[in-house]
């Protein structure tokens, strides 16, 4: 009888441990998306070759990916219906103007949007010089692994993705992540 009881207790303990392992494995995997903190966008170092950037720009011209060869490229996923994007676009335009001599290219992917509204936003903000690929279905952004808007990917001169940021980036973020890539 006491042996049976010990066995039961052991089994119960094993069950609790198993439950714990199950829960822990669930907790360990980040579900959903952690909210960007007030300190800045959620940032991750990335590796791997950058997906292709093709399609038509918001002005209707075909996008020329050859122009990006050997450049540091900041790919920004945005949409005119996204408020933080509107705050971020002028920062990106300023970075492009400041660093274009050193080889920075900023390319937008305008997802699930009306091209006219997107052009109006760029005009309102005075950043019409930011080229953007029109991605009405959002499939180009998905090919990049985008999770939402705004989001930025930084690609180095050899075409490798180096940084991913979820949330609006600011001048300090660009200085810290893009600056070193431009010098190399």
């Amino acid at each position, binding site marked *: 009888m006491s042996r049976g009881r010990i066995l039961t207790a052991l*089994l119960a303990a094993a*069950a609790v441990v198993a439950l714990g392992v199950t829960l822990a494995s669930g907790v360990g*995997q980040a579900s*959903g998306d952690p909210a960007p903190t007030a300190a800045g966008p959620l940032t991750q170092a990335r590796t791997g070759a950058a997906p292709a950037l093709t399609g038509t720009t918001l002005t209707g011209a075909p996008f020329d990916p050859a122009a990006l060869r050997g450049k540091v490229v900041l790919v920004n996923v945005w949409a005119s219906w996204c408020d933080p994007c509107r705050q971020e676009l002028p920062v990106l335009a300023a970075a492009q103007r400041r660093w274009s001599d050193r080889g920075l290219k900023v390319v937008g992917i305008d*997802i699930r949007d009306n091209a006219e*509204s997107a052009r109006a936003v760029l005009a309102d903000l005075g950043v019409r010089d930011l080229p953007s690929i029109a991605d009405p*279905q*959002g499939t180009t952004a*998905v090919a990049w692994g985008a999770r*939402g808007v705004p989001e930025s990917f930084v690609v180095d001169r050899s075409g490798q993705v180096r940084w991913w940021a979820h949330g609006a980036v600011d001048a300090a973020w660009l200085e810290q992540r893009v600056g070193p890539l431009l010098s190399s």
Partner: protein
Amino acid sequence: MTARRLLTLAVLAVLLGAAGTAVWRSVGPRPETAHSIAEQLLCPTCQGESVAQSQSPMAAAMRDTIDQQLAAGRTPEQVRRFFLDRYGPGVLAEPSYHGLGLLLWLLPGLAVALVVGLVLRRRRRRSGDSLAEAPTEAPSARGRPARAWDAVAVAVIALVAAVAVASPHRGPDTQPAPAADRDTSLQALAQSLEDQGRYAEAAEVYRDVVTLRPDDRTRLKLAFALLRADRAREAATTAQQALHDSPGSTDALLILGLAQRASGSPAATATLRRFLKAAPKDPAAAEVRRLLGAT
């Protein structure tokens, strides 16, 4: 006693049958469609929603990506791999069949086997005890709580079986209206334009949505956006269409009346009076009364 045993056996057989059917219905092989693949992927920006369920623009983009890839001749496995490569293992709604994921799959089975083993062990020992004491009846003092537990267990199984049978049957995946995805982001865009006071642009977007999927609520939003964009005549025509399709809509009456009034139509007063009569307690009623009093 034999009748009772027969009844117990019959109940057990029914429950096992129901459980088997339920399991087959949920895991039985079904042809993979874009929708079923979307169900197996988690929307990366939402908590616990699949790509098939989520209304977020990113989930809609992922659904379009699945469609595109299947149309390009990729297999469902290749499509899943595409998402796995880009979004990591967290994008899969089901744990993988390797490592810790495998443990998660095996655990429920192991738990059931364990409980069954325990119960059988105890049964066997008890029947051994009772054989030694009295071969006809189990000792009632120990039998009673055990029987209570049996009853609870049977009740739980019956409940699960009932839920499994009564749950809405998901037939061969009926594709939800594909236009809905695009609508949602267009509606969000129009709303955002309206919030910024860009009514003419908002109206154009609403018009796109109405063309894609005629719906009176969107038609009314279009009418209201047109009214606010100082295009009263078009607003009146649109509201008239909405009213024609749903004659009971007081919102349609209100917007029609306001549009007629703004375009100087003599019918405005009559329309607004009809609105007041149909919805005397509407939040807009007081303002309409003021307008009517002023004319």
